[in-house]
């Protein structure tokens, strides 16, 4: 499969100098054309920071300290997003990668009409477009996400949470981007609305052919909606594999811990287990594998040495990677 976005050795820190907190560490991740890549992990594992970092939306004091984000446009040569000039970056944003943010409630400006917020993207990116066709396009997007176009003149507070998030999805697709990053898009919604919206999004993806990076802490949603899943812990990717493989046969003890902490809808009842301990303090990360203090299977190499992400020696090892001393690797990724 052809890659559309390649993240290489990305490092993001908050703050400068000795007291900087490394929130994303040496992350290598590839998003392929047309796939849904799930990104899971506890709060503070760096998944949102990764998303903000690769679109250069980090608010100060967040800084990208190293790495590359290679974008492959549909036509033309690949380029590094981190090296774009401000002007090129503005043109890149939303036209190539759009984002649906967490917190559906606050993503829309409360004082502007829905129509204004949909059309100002078009005004910024396609200045030659006429007012009439801008409005027509905005109406079309609302229809696409299942909102009656006569809500164009509504203000955000006149819409429900689910409608607002659908407006955001419509807004994300208005320029037909190649990549849509969804940062906990349905966290603020009830479960029924969550499934409705995600189902609609997957259907739109099949129709329009964009790729999705889907960030959530809800692994059960990922297993259902994504093609591949990457698990983050302490700013690093600890395991990455096709969704079904992770679900059936996760290799990293942390992935297994995550999977064990939500109930299955079908199948025999089983005891729910949590992961003991709490997420690591990013400012004072444990040595070696950062999961080792909480890991039930930790042994000698875990504390002193950092395991690298690479292909495990299992039969399906070619399609997956893991960073764990239980599965030492011959072929590191990145």
């Amino acid at each position, binding site marked *: 499969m052809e890659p559309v976005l390649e993240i290489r050795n990305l490092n993001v820190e908050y703050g400068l100098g000795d007291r900087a907190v490394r929130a994303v560490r040496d992350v290598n991740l590839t998003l392929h054309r047309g796939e849904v890549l799930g990104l899971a992990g506890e709060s503070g594992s760096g998944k949102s920071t990764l998303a903000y970092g690769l679109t250069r939306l980090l608010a100060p004091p967040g800084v990208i300290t190293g790495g590359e984000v290679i974008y492959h446009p549909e036509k033309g040569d690949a380029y590094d997003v981190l090296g774009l000039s401000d002007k090129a970056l503005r043109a*890149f944003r939303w*036209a190539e990668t759009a984002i649906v943010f967490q917190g559906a409630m606050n993503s829309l400006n*409360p*004082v502007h009409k829905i129509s204004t917020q949909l059309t*100002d*993207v078009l005004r910024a990116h396609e200045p030659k477009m006429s007012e009439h066709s801008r409005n027509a396009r905005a109406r079309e997007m609302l229809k696409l996400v299942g909102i009656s176009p006569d809500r164009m003149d509504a203000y955000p*507070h006149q819409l429900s949470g689910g409608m607002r998030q659908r407006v955001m999805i419509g807004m994300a697709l208005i320029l037909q981007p190649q990549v849509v990053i969804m940062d906990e898009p349905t966290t603020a919604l009830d479960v029924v609305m969550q499934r409705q919206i995600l189902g609609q999004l997957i259907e739109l993806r099949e129709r329009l052919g964009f790729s999705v990076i889907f960030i959530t802490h809800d692994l059960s949603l990922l297993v259902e909606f994504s093609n591949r899943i990457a698990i983050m812990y302490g700013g690093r990717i600890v395991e990455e594999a096709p969704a079904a493989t992770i679900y059936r046969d996760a290799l990293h003890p942390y992935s297994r811990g995550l999977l064990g902490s939500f109930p299955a809808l079908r199948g025999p009842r089983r005891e729910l287990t949590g992961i003991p301990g709490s997420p690591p303090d990013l400012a004072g990360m444990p040595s070696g594998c950062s999961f080792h203090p909480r890991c039930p299977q930790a042994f000698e190499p875990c504390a002193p040495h950092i395991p690298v992400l690479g292909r495990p020696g299992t039969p399906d090892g070619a399609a997956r990677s893991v960073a764990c001393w239980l599965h030492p690797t011959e072929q590191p990724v990145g």
Partner: protein
Amino acid sequence: MRYFLQRIAFYLFTLWAAITLNFFIPRLVPGDPVQSLIAKFRGQLSTEAINSLYVLFGLDDDKSLWTQYIDYWKQLFQGDLGLSFTFFPSPVSQIIADALPWTVLLVGITTVISFLIGTSLGVLAGWRRGSWTDGLLPVTTFFSSVPYFWLGIIAIFLLTGPDSFFPSSGGFDSALIPAWDQYFIPSALQHSLLPALTILISSVSGWILSMRNMMVTVASEDYITVAHAKGLSERRVAVSYAARNALLPNISGFALSLGFIVGGTLLVEIVFSYPGLGFILLQALGAKDYPLMQGIFLVITISVLVANLLADVAYLLLDPRTRKEG
């Protein structure tokens, strides 16, 4: 619209309450305005003259408080605020009409300028947080905590004198007669510069601070990140998303400050002996001139109420969330 009518009804009620209080308070104060007038004429008034003064002020004994109250309202509707003692026999409405333009022009124009400058600087300082503009903050904090009359006294002390361009008191050169001509207007402008500057310097800081803080608060809202992510130009994000939303509390603050134009800068007018309403009020207080005080309080009350109404209207126009459906 219904909401709006409700507000208007509320303001009419408040106005009625304020005027009623305005009527009763002087009558509850011990002492008698006629007595102070007699004192002013050093007893050279006949008994008949004193009696007619009581009638004139509506203080003749055979009228009940209720009848006086009704008469007071009747007079109000005719624009008759009574006669002043201090400037006897000028009617209060005439004195207020003479003093009001001075205050409204001086303080009104400075308030508007101060709001415009302060808000734009605040937008800039809030948007460029962390740049050199942050160095302005201690200075603005200092000036916003300095009372403006004190600043006025310092300005008079430092900048005025026999050879100075700035006059230390008054609203115009006393050799001139108030008129719209080429001698009077420059003189009035020259006299207004120093009081205007003191008000401007001490009030602009408040606008800068509040606008900057609102900008900083709004800048961390999700919709600002979304606006950046949408690839909108920096200018569009700053103006149409951040400043537009941060402006809301400042607008209502501005409308309220319009209400205080009339009464709020009393001390500046006193310091500069500026012939505005505040200066007149000081004289009225000194002379226990109740009709004049009542008249000035009435004007202040009305302007505060009108300003509040303006704030409500501005908010309805600017913030769709305050508009009720239907």
